[in-house]
Every structure is written in C-alpha cells, then in structure tokens.
C-alpha cells in the first residue's frame, strides 16, 4: 500500500501505527473505505443538493472581510493514530498519502519568519506524527512565535512520543487538545471505545508536566465537539461543569475550554448522510445563524497552509479544496506558501460555501472557540 517514495522516517511511523493496537479507532477513513465522499468535490455537490432556503454569501459576504494576520496555521498532513467519526480531515493511520514534504516544511518556515502572525497553530492529522514536527515547532519558537499544538491526546501515549510532553513544556507550547466530552459515553461514541480512558491518561501526563494549572506558559486548552447532529453547548456555561467533573472523577485539571460545532464535511458529512440527519442538521445551522458570530471568525485573521503548501482561509476550506482567492494582481501561483505575500493576502476575498453555516450557528465556532 505504501508509496515507494515515502521518506524513511515517515515509513517507520506509519509502520508503527499499523502495528498499534492500543489506540482506539471509531471507524476507517473515507479514503480507506473507498467511499464516494472521500472526494471534496463530491462533498460540495452533496451540500449543494440539500434543499435550503439560505445563501451564506448573501447573508454574510458584505460583513466578512479580512482582518490583520494573527494566526499562521500549518496542517502537516492527514496521518493520525485515531479515526474519529466526526473528523473533518478524513485523517487516519492509512493517510500517508497526504503529508508535508521536507521542501514544503522549509518554505513554511521561511513564510513564518517573514509573516507578522504572532501565533503558529500546528495541526493535522496528528501533527506530532510528522517527522519534522519538532523542527517546525523549534523554528517557530526561535522566530518568536507563540506555538499551539492541536493534539488528540492519545498520540502522546505512543512509545515513539515518550518525552514529547516535557519537550513541549520546556518550549511553552500551548496544547490545544480535543476531548469531545468530560465523561466517557460521548467521548467513546465519537472516538472509539477506550478513547476516554486513554485521553484521561494523557491529561494526567500533561498535568504532571505543569500543563493545565493556571501557568500561562503551560496552557492546556480543551476542545469539545458535539457527539451528534446538534450544536455545541455554550462554552462559558459548561466550563465549570467540565472543570468540576474532571477534577472530581479523575483529579485532572485544564485551563480553558473551547466548544466547536461540527462542520458538515468529510466524515461528519458522511455520518450525517448515513444517519438520516443531513437535511435537519443543515437546517438547524441555518436557523441558528448568528451575525454576531462573524466578527470573531478565524477566516478573517488566519492563514491556513495545507500539507502540499497550498493556501486557504481555514482548515475546513482546505479539506474541501477551496483555495484562497487572492486579488487578480497577485503573482501567478500566489496561492502557494513559497510565494506568500501578506499584503496581497490582506486584499483577498474570503471564500465561503454552505459549510460555513457551521461556524456562524449559535454562539459561533472557530479554532479559537465560540465567537459570539
């Protein structure tokens, strides 16, 4: 199965994942299942075919304008030790086909150094599985950036990542860890049986390294996604309950909670369709459209770089192949990170489609949590 050109270290990592029996897995990637929805174009077609009396661009287009660049988000690729049911990336242990190569890593680092972004947000897949993960984090720290690692928690327990938490802690890297719920049932429903228990073990490792205890240099942010076809809870309203529940039941603490909505793309879209919830979920998002959520949306202040170096307004557009729309006087091939020009980026038109209703529903939803 593996491509002959796979760099040796990536090949080793993929081999380890193939042997890994400890990490729970909820499903398989759409690509592995050869599902039609593995193709982004098929996802966009399905979304467009749903009868909805609402046009995102007409509602939000005039308001949704670029802001100053704050977050440089790098997606290192789709390789992951887990296969959560709601994954918008269609990540999994089989996804060695979509991993950032060395030349692109160097181009990303050069763009980070010349960008005005204060934060470098590293995501995937499980970014910690990329052979150049530590190089990228170190270079971003050396460039004076705040680094966020979007972590699935269980990846920290893999033998190959022994010592990684301390390494990250020494560099003040913020851990932004996905945990669907503070109790077992909904967490395991979304991520596979046993995922909650391993997530709690990883949280204990993080706490032991000083994360999640109010130290701004060891910040542990938890990210919750609803386990089903409903919107996320109000962040501020449930944070106390999470804090009390995790401490009471497991002696675990964290610094802040982000609650996100599930985007109707990739595996969550597939689940919506299979479970008969697609139309009602999209209608729910439209009914909950909240213009107050627009101002804080990540697409305004975030550059999203894909594993192949192409540029997007957000990680969701990235997964749908909806590339950045730079002004016509931008250089040819300007949508690649090697040509990243912040001034031209400022003049872009933010690219939207129906999935964007996921970010404007209810209290809003972005990489930085709720926005309204």
């Amino acid at each position, binding site marked *: 199965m593996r491509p002959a050109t796979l760099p040796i270290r990536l090949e080793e990592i993929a081999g380890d994942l193939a042997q890994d029996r400890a990490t729970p897995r909820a499903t398989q990637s759409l690509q592995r299942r050869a599902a039609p929805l593995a193709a982004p174009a098929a996802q966009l077609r399905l979304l467009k075919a749903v009868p909805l009396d609402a046009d995102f661009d007409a509602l939000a287009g005039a308001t949704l304008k670029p802001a100053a660049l704050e977050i440089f988000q790098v997606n290192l690729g789709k390789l992951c030790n887990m296969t959560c049911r709601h994954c918008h990336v269609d990540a999994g242990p089989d996804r060695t086909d979509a991993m950032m190569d060395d030349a692109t890593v160097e181009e990303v680092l050069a763009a980070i150094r010349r960008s005005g972004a204060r934060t470098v947000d590293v995501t995937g897949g499980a970014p910690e599985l990329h052979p150049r993960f530590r190089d990228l984090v170190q270079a971003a720290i050396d460039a004076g950036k705040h680094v966020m690692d979007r972590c699935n928690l269980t990846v920290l327990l893999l033998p190959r990542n022994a010592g990684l938490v301390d390494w990250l802690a020494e560099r003040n890297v913020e851990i932004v860890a996905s945990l669907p*719920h503070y*109790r077992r*049932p*909904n967490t395991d429903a979304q991520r596979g049986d046993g995922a909650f228990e391993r997530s709690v073990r990883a949280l204990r490792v993080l706490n032991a390294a000083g994360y999640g205890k109010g130290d701004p240099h060891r910040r542990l942010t938890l990210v*919750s996604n*609803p*386990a*089903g076809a*409903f*919107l*996320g*809870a*109000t962040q501020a*309203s*449930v944070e*106390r*309950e999470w804090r009390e529940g995790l401490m009471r039941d497991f002696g675990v603490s964290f610094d802040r909670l982000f*609650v996100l909505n599930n985007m109707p793309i990739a595996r969550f879209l597939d689940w919506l369709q299979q479970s008969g919830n697609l139309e009602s979920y999209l209608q729910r998002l439209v009914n909950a459209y909240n213009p107050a959520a627009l101002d804080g949306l990540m697409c305004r202040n975030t550059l999203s770089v894909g594993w192949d170096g192409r540029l997007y307004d957000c990680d969701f557009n990235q997964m749908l192949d909806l590339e950045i729309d730079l002004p016509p006087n931008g250089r040819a091939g300007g949508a690649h990170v090697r040509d990243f020009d912040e001034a031209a980026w400022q003049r872009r038109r933010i690219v939207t489609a129906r999935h964007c209703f996921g970010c404007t529903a209810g209290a809003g939803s972005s990489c930085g949590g709720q926005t309204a």
Partner: protein
Amino acid sequence: MDTYYKSQHLADFPKISESSPELGKKFFDYYGAVFADGALTAREKSLIALAVAHAVQCPYCIDAYTQDCQQKGADLEQMTEAVHVSVAIRGGSSLVHGLQMREHAKKLGM
C-alpha cells in the same frame, strides 16, 4: 384532525401568539428567562425540564428537551438518570398514598 399529535406543532409553537399576542409575548419572554443561566445552569434546568416532560408525558417536550439536553452537553447516562428522577417521584407519589390506604383499611378492618 386525523391525529392529535404532529411533530410540526413544535416548530409552530410560536403561532399560538397570533390569537393573543400580548399574553403570548409575556409567556415566551418568561419562558426564555426561566431557562437562562442563573443560580442553576442552563444545562441543569434543561435536565429538570426533561424529567418534567416525562412526568407530564408530553411528546413535544420530550423531543425538544432531548435535543436541548444533548446540545447543552448532557450525555445519555445523565439524561436517563433525569428520567429516573421523574419515575421515582411518580412511583413514590403512588406508593406514599399507600399510607392513606393503610389508614382506611385499619379503620374499617378488624
């Protein structure tokens, strides 16, 4: 009317105000205020509503508050426990009346 309960009634609930706008507004304003975060969290109130929905056996309320509880971050175990609270109160309410039965029986019996 061919059936008494229709799921569309839930979405149409605000239409009840059409024939009495002033009372409708008062009711819905009050309703919204009741369920806001207060001394109890919105989630705690939603779980209470779910339990009461089962006590009054209202299909509209069961539909609405199942989704509302999920959306407020409650899981199926927590929601099932809320239903058992309703069951315990309903069952206990029947059972405690057994003491009335006992008093009557003792009075009449030998």
